[in-house]
Every structure is written in structure tokens, then in C-alpha cells.
């Protein structure tokens, strides 16, 4: 899937150098708005760029896991923040079918890992070194996992990367899948309020990383061999005995978009956003209570040099 995705992304870049036709400017381009604030920021900026280019834009709320049928049908035209670590199998199917095309990387530098709120370092001395976890499993033990420690893993439909790490590294932890992102956040919140132990599979950029002062455990650096060759890494008998492979965050669109709105397709293909830009905006919304529209409008006005060239390259 990945290789195919890259191929398509390259094709998109190759096809979209220089100015393009605007296409059907009277019909609104529908962008997916999913369930998390970072994605709202990413999408809103892209939408405002399309507006600056002369398009009509409609923001459509869509469940992240269930939107790919809609993109394939052209009922949603683009989704701008897809995480390789957590993308529905349906996406790969639709890309293979040719109804969805990838638009290349968003440029957000994502990181996933085994994490803990900062106060946990006092409960398990030696953190962030992963070796420390070998000796303090009891600290993390609960009724469901005793005598092993408890690791709160991703919801089951996102895969079981936490459980794979524990097995690979031979750590005495049992992974308990959360039911939803809300359950992960509630765990972080309760642990921070109560100063209780917590080990959790988590990712950034995410507003909770700073809100709950979340730190990553230092695991052996990931290499391709780690996931295929048991001999690699600290545990000679298992694969997955290393940190998470870097996850990609990319953009996807309805296959028909390229012909219907050629310039918009090019703008979205070349659109990138960095963690340094996205994270403060998330904070301004989730922590300081600003509205998405105002926060993004302010950023767009102050950072025109970051986005205007992409719009101009496609339209002039």
C-alpha cells in the first residue's frame, strides 16, 4: 500500500507543475472535517487557501474511519490529514480500486510511542529509559492485569502496536485496548489528577501531549530489520523490539478531483503544514478556548508567506 501511495504521490507532483485550469469554480469543493482539533486546523487552512484561489469550499463533518466510501463516491472531495498508523483498511481498498488518490505527505512530523505523564517518572525511577520498566511492572499492575503491569493500548481497530512492543521487548506488561480516543484521554486525565501510575500508547502532535505533560519512553531506535529479523535488537528471539516506525501523515482525494478542479488538486497536493505551525493553533483552540475560524484567520493573515506561494503557483 505504501509503495503504491508513493507512486501516486509522485505522479501527482509530476502532473501538477505550474499553473492549471481552475475548473468548476461554481461547485463547492467538499473537505472532510474529522473528529480531532488538529485535523480541523489542517482542513480549515487548506479550505481558506482554496477560497483565496477563487473556489467555493464546503466543510463536511465525517467520521474518520467511515468516510472513505464517501470520498470514493465523490461526495467528499478531499481529506487532508490521514495517519498511516491508523487508517481504515477501506482506504487501501479504494486506492487499489482507483477511486481515491493520495495527494502526498502533509509534512506534519508525527511520532508514536509508549508514553507516560511526567509525574510517573517519580514512581518508576530510571524512566525514560525503557529498561526501567523491567523492574517496576508491579507499580503499573491493576486488578485486570496482576501480576503483570498494565499498558493502555490504542483502540482495537487502530491495531495493537503497544502489545507488539511489550512482546518484542519481553516486558512484563499486559496491553489493555482502550475503546476510544476519549477513553485514552480520560486515562491521562485521571492519572494526572490522581498522580497515579500510567503507561499508555500515544502520539504527537496531540493537544494532550502538553496539557498532561506526556513524555515518551526511550526505546531502541527503529530500523527496518527490527520488524523482520528476530535477531536484531535487544531481544534475539522476537521482532518489534524497538521504537515505533515513523508514521506518515498524508492527504487523500477523490480520483475525479484532478479533472474537475485541476488547480485545487494542485494546491492540495503541494499543501504542507508543520507541527510548529499546527500545535500552537490547537492550543489556542483547545486550551485557550478560541474559535477555529478566528484562530485560523489570524494565522493566515500573519503567515501569508507560508501559503500564498502554493496558491499562486497553481493559479498564475
Amino acid at each position: 500500500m505504501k509503495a503504491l501511495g508513493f507512486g501516486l504521490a509522485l505522479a501527482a507532483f509530476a502532473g501538477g507543475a505550474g499553473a492549471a485550469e481552475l475548473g468548476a469554480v461554481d461547485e463547492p469543493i467538499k473537505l472532510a472535517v474529522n473528529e480531532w482539533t488538529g485535523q480541523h486546523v489542517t482542513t480549515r487552512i487548506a479550505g481558506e487557501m482554496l477560497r483565496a484561489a477563487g473556489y467555493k469550499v464546503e466543510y463536511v463533518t465525517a467520521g474518520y474511519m467511515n468516510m472513505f466510501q464517501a470520498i470514493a463516491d465523490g461526495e467528499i472531495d478531499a481529506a487532508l490529514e490521514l495517519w498511516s498508523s491508523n487508517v481504515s483498511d477501506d482506504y487501501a481498498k479504494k486506492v487499489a480500486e482507483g477511486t481515491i488518490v493520495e495527494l502526498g505527505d502533509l509534512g506534519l512530523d508525527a511520532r508514536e510511542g509508549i508514553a507516560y505523564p511526567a509525574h510517573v517518572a517519580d514512581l518508576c525511577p530510571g524512566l525514560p529509559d525503557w529498561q526501567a520498566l523491567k523492574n517496576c511492572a508491579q507499580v503499573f499492575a491493576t486488578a485486570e492485569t496482576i501480576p503483570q503491569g498494565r499498558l493502555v493500548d490504542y483502540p482495537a481497530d487502530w491495531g495493537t502496536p503497544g502489545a507488539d512492543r511489550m512482546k518484542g521487548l519481553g516486558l512484563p506488561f499486559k496491553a489493555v485496548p482502550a475503546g476510544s480516543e476519549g477513553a485514552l484521554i480520560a486515562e491521562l486525565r485521571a492519572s494526572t489528577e490522581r498522580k497515579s501510575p500510567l503507561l499508555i500508547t500515544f502520539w504527537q502532535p496531540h493537544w494532550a501531549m502538553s496539557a498532561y505533560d506526556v513524555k515518551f519512553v526511550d526505546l531502541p531506535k527503529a530500523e527496518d530489520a527490527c520488524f523482520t529479523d528476530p535477531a536484531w535488537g535487544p531481544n534475539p528471539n522476537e521482532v518489534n523490539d524497538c521504537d515505533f516506525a515513523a508514521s506518515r501523515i498524508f492527504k487523500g482525494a477523490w480520483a475525479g478531483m484532478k479533472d474537475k478542479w485541476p488547480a485545487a488538486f494542485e494546491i492540495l497536493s503541494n499543501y504542507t503544514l508543520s507541527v510548529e505551525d499546527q500545535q500552537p493553533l490547537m492550543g489556542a483552540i483547545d486550551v485557550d478556548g478560541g474559535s477555529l475560524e478566528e484562530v485560523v484567520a489570524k494565522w493566515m493573515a500573519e503567515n501569508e508567506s507560508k501559503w500564498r506561494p502554493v496558491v499562486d503557483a497553481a493559479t498564475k
Partner: protein
Amino acid sequence: MTAPSGQAPAPRVLTPGVRAALIVLLAGALSLALEPAFPWVVTWPAEWTLPATQWVGDGVGWLLGWLKPAARLFSDLLRYPMGWADLALGATPWPVVIGAVTAIGWYLGGLPMAALGFVGLSFVLASGYWSQSMNTLALVAVSVPLALIAGGVIGILANEFPRLKPPVQVVLDVMQTVPTFAYLTPLLILFGFGPVVGLIASAIYAAPPMARNVILGLERIESEIREAAVMSGAGRLRQLFEVEIPSASAQIMVGVNQSLMAALSMVIIAAVIGGFDDIGWEVLLTMRKAQFGQSLLAGLVIVVFAVVIDRMSGALATERRRHDPRIAYGLLGLAVGLAVVFGARLPEASGFDLLAPLADAVDRGLGEFTAANGDWLAGIKNGVMFFVLLPLRIGLDQAVLPFTWGFAWTPAMSGALFAAAALLCLVLVWRGRAMAGLMLLIGAGVLETGIANLPWPFVLVGAAALGWMAGGWRLAALSVGLLSTILLSGLWERALLSLYLSGAAVLACAVLGGLIGLWAALSPTVWRLVRPVCDMLQTIPLFVFLIPVLMFFQIGEFSAFLAICAYAVVPMIRYTRHGLISTPPELLEAAVASGATNWQILRDLRAPWAAPTILLGLNQTILYAFAMLVIAALIGTTGLGQSIYLALGRADVGLGLSAGAAMAILAFISDRLVQGFAAERRRALGL
């Protein structure tokens, strides 16, 4: 092991029930005895399962492809009324909407109803969720008529062609017990993305109450009325529409009311797909951030709608008297006048957030409470996990460990447990209560093994025995047949986990709800306090309560157990109270006259009289517990609920429908069993 001791009873106590219990006991003992030699007795081997989920996926996929063009046409057509309703509600200035609801309230129920409408809608305005709320109302405004038409047609057809009644009942059961999440993916493929899917999902769920009430209403028409219509020489259609339906209108209005409530409760479920910026989506967004205060606020908006719609449509169904329409027009005129005079100077509806500080305070309070009380909360959780839930799930032999109970479980202890149970059983048999003794022995076996590890032959034989007792051979065969499909599809383990979790919750609800119901029946003050809590628990989107439960007790079975109980306990309370207070007054007078004490009246008159009603309450509690399993999966459980979510995330139609069907099968069998026993009790009481 201990089976021989169970075969001691003398022939005179061999009632059918005792024989059935003996067979179950024998099946259990045999399975346990054979386990070491034949492990397949306990765990159904993977190679015996059929790739049923694959077949279902392929079959349904083919069917969907075939139906898709027609469905897409239908969904395109539905977009029009949806758009109109949305435009009408969204573009109408908020004073006019509030004025209109207040005016309708006045017309239907006078001052109290008008006040309810006004205060309710003002709350919605103050919450800052006005535009989302109007979107939600638009959805309900289109889906309910759809549900009413579908339900009405189904009901009338079932009434006209009595042979259709049994299959119609099954279809209605399926529509109500298969969790909506299980068929969202096929609906998405069929009808395309957007609010139309939510609309159809909520119409599917809201149609059965209408159909059931139409059937009931038409059945209950007195024969004189029918005969008069026949004698007047009117054609069948005229008889139906001019005589029968009007005479059944009271019951049909109950159906309308139930249908409205069902549609509203489904709004939040439909929001999972998105496509529509409605109040359900807001609840999901705030739930995702674990913001309890905000999600409670959004949830209360739905409660307000539910209460207003329930009371007004209830008045429409029961109250014949209408209030002066001139005042209603006056109110509406005043609102329109206000809107016109202030015009563009009216503050933006979404600009209100008067309640945000309150929501923040609730949220902070939750955090502080968790911080201050974490230790004893964790103590409760560990206690219940170690001593109740874990033994129920994996049995005493695996749950009793040095770090849970302080000692390890040994085979000798198993022997002692069985010996004690057998001894007690013998005592009970000797005293003529063979049934109770055998049930005790079976219970000891289940506790030793754990529900999740029960051998499948034992479960099948047990279900057959219960089915036979409750409804004869047909129900027994049906139960075994349906359970076998779960076994063959490979979802058995997950089904047992779901059975364990909902079983534990139903048990707790039966005891707790029964006691609260009893208390509320004895003291009207208690009922005044309990009733609004029950109302709220039934109408608020339960997602909201997952956050505090998670904060207090973290991810795990105990949290899921609590969440299920919070929802499923309500019918038990309501029905227990209702059963206990509806003893016929002449019987009560006779009892009082004969000098019985209050306690004697309760034990010997009210309780037996209430038994069928309480059993129906138990039945509802079971159905609610299964319905809640899917929501509880958002906490993190491992049963069928999790499979349904997995399937939704992967757009796996086969797995979703199979897991949904397995859940519906469990609910269906429990429902038929309890109803069978309730019918038997009613016969025994001569009702």
C-alpha cells in the same frame, strides 16, 4: 465428578423441571469429566468453524451492489425534504422557533406545557448549541414521518393478513435488537454518505414501536364497532380508515410518542458517521476530549428535546381538551413581531454561551473529585473485580490467586466446593425442593468454571432445557439452532464474554433495581426523587457518562459493567414499582379487613401479583443491557461489542453483521425465555 449425588432424588419429585435440570447437570458433569481427554468439548476447535462472516460479507456485498441504484435514487429523493426541514429550521429566527413551540405547548396543555416549551428551548439557546440542535430537529422531523408511515403500513398489513403476524413480529424484533452500529457500514454503501444514512438508521429503529402499537390498537377494537362498520356496507378500505383506525387512535398515538423517543435516542448513534453538524456530533467531539462538563451540556440539550417532545406528544395522545387557539396565535404573533422589530439586531443564536462557565465548573469538579477520592474508588473496583467479576468470568479455579484472594485455589478446594453444594442439594431434595437443590449444584459448577470457559455442550443443553421449560419444544429447538449458528461462525468466545458481562450487569440490576423499585413503591417521596433520574438516564446519550466512569475506574470491565448497569437498571425500577402498586384495590381491602400486616400484604399479595410485571421489567433490563454492550465497547471491552466497532472501522460488512446478529440472537433468546416464564406466571395467577 459430583453428578451421581444429583441422581439420588426419589421418583415422586421427578417433575419436568427437575428432569430438565438433571439433564443439564449431567451434561455439565460429562463435559468437565471429558475435558482432559477431549479438549474440543470445552473450546470449539477453530477448524470446525465455517467462514460465515466471509460468506455474509460476500453475500451482502452482492446484494448491496444490486440494490444500490434504487437506494441511491431513494436517498437523492430524501435529500429534498431533509434540505427543506434544515432550511426552515435553520433560517427561522430563534425567537420565532421558541414562540412556536411555546404556542403549541399552550394549545396542547395550557400554561404548564407552554412554560415547559419556553424554558426548554431557552435552555437550548443558552447552551450555545442552537444551530446544531436545529439540525438535529430537522433530522428527526424527516425520519419520524418516514418511520410512522413504514410502521403504520407494516401494522395495517399484519392486521389485514393475520398469517403475516408471526413473521412481522420477528422482523420487528430484529429491527430493534440488532445494534445500529452493526449495519451502519452497509447503509453507507447503499445510501451514500451524509445525513440520509443517519435518517434511515433512526427510521429503522423508530418504526417498530409504531407498528406494534398499530397492531395492538387494531386488535383491541371491540367487535360491535367492527360489526357496525360491516353492516353499514362500507368497503374494507373505508371500514379501516373511517372506523377502525379512528377507534384505535389512542393506542396509535402511544406508538407515535414511542417512535419519536426512539428516533431521538438514535440521533447520537447516527452521528458516528458524520455528514451533519448536529448535536450528536458535538457530544462525540467533547467525549473524544474527555470534557465531561461540555458533553453533559450537549447531552442535556437532547434530554430537553426528549422531555418536550414526550410531554407534548403524550398530551396529544391522551388529552382531548385543547386550549384557546387565540392565545397560541397571540404568542406566535408576539414572537414574529419581536423577530421583525429587532431584525438583524437580534444576537446570533450560536453566540450565546451562558452555560459554558457552569460546564467548566462541572468539569473541574469531576477532576477534583477524582483526585481526592481516587484511593477508595480504586478499592471498590478491586474488590468487585477480585471477588465478583473475575470469578464469574474465568471461574474460581483461575480467579483465586495469592495476590487476589490471598491464597491459591487447589483441586481439593474444588472438591470441597462441590461436596458442600452436593450436601446442600441433598438437604433441599430431602425437604422436597429438588429444583432449588439442583440449580444450586449447577450454579456451583458455573462459578467454578467461569462463564467465559463454559463448555459449549453445557450451554446448548442448558438453553434447550430453559427453552423447553419456558415455551416447549419449539422454543428449545429454536434456541439451540440459533446458538449453533454463533458456534459455527466462530464468534462463540466473544459471545460468551458478552453473555458474562451483560449477565453480571443484569444480575446486579435485578437486585438493585428491584430494591429501589420496592422502596419507591412504598414511599412516594422516594419515587419523586428517583423518577427524574430514571427519565434522564433513559434519554441522555450514554456516551456522556462514559467519561466520569472512566475517570473514576479507568478502562476495563468494571467501568463497562457500571455503564451497562446505569442504563439497564431503569426498566427494573419502573416495572417493579408499577407491579407493586397496581394490586387490585378490592384485594387490598380484603387483606386489610382480614387483619394482615403491611409486611404480610407485601409478601403474600402484592409480590406474587406483581411477579409477571416484574418479569417483564427483567426482560426489558436484559434487552437494555445487550443494547448498551455496544456503547460500553467505547470504554474497552472484548466481547461482541468490540467486534462491531472493529468491523465499523474496517468497513467489514460481514463481521459487523455477523457480530450484530450474534448479539441479537442472545437478546432474542433471553427475551423469549423470560416472556415464556412471565406468561406461565400469569396463567398461574389466572390473569
